[in-house]
């Protein structure tokens, strides 16, 4: 008679157990930043209409954006924008058929996150300390 006992088979590790590969994290981040930027366009539209509507409307916008929540949203928006752009460039490189080797995928994923954080910090340092900020 056939042995019907369950054999010891390797189990697929649960998503919470195994170490997330960086390219996988960057793939998820690309989608999440895309969704964030989608709703962030409300902020751009509000900003442009505020400028168009004169000093009163603009001061209401700046009053919001100068709160710590507003600053955090603006900081997050600029990071998401730069991150999604770099992630998009990565996808355009893949569209040409290049960059699919293991080492290349790891390198591109690392370049996306390091590049986006560096560029965002640089942008805010230049914008905040050298151009405007608290003025």
């Amino acid at each position: 008679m056939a042995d019907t006992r369950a054999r010891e088979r390797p189990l697929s590790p649960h998503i919470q157990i195994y170490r997330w590969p960086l390219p996988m994290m960057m793939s998820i981040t690309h989608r999440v930043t895309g969704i964030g930027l989608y709703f962030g366009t409300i902020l751009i539209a509000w900003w442009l209409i505020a400028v168009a509507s004169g000093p009163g409307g603009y001061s209401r916008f700046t009053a919001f954006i100068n709160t710590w929540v507003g600053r955090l949203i603006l900081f997050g928006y600029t990071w998401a924008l730069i991150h999604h752009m770099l992630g998009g460039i990565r996808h355009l490189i893949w569209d040409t058929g290049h960059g699919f080797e293991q080492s290349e995928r790891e390198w591109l994923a690392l370049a996306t996150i390091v590049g986006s954080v560096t560029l965002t910090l640089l942008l805010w340092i230049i914008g905040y300390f050298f151009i405007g900020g608290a003025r």
Partner: protein
Amino acid sequence: MSGNGKDMRTPLGRVAGLGSAHSGTGHFWWQRLTAVANVPLTIAFVVILVSLFGRNQAAAQQILGTPVVAIIMLLFIASITYHMRLGMQVVIEDYVHGEIIRPLLIMANTFFTIAVGLAAGYGILKLSFGV
């Protein structure tokens, strides 16, 4: 290919070349086209954004109302809103499967992107003509 007796497609289907989704490569192509356009436009937008840090309303209007800046902003808004409509459509198609809710969300996606795009475009034109 067309002379193959095993091909089950109708002559119309072969000529249209749209495949089983009936929409061809349009979604993919416009997604990539706007993605390529978004790269220089986003860099320009970030530069404009930084140059406006901490300025008052009059200065912001003066800079944004410059023809070159206003046109770059209009192109940026047009390209990102079309790109994000395509992107959000894929997200909806991936996660929402209800027969009613799915087409409703895909409609709402189009409504939202057109509304927010027009609002931003209206802002740019209004502040530009006010300079």
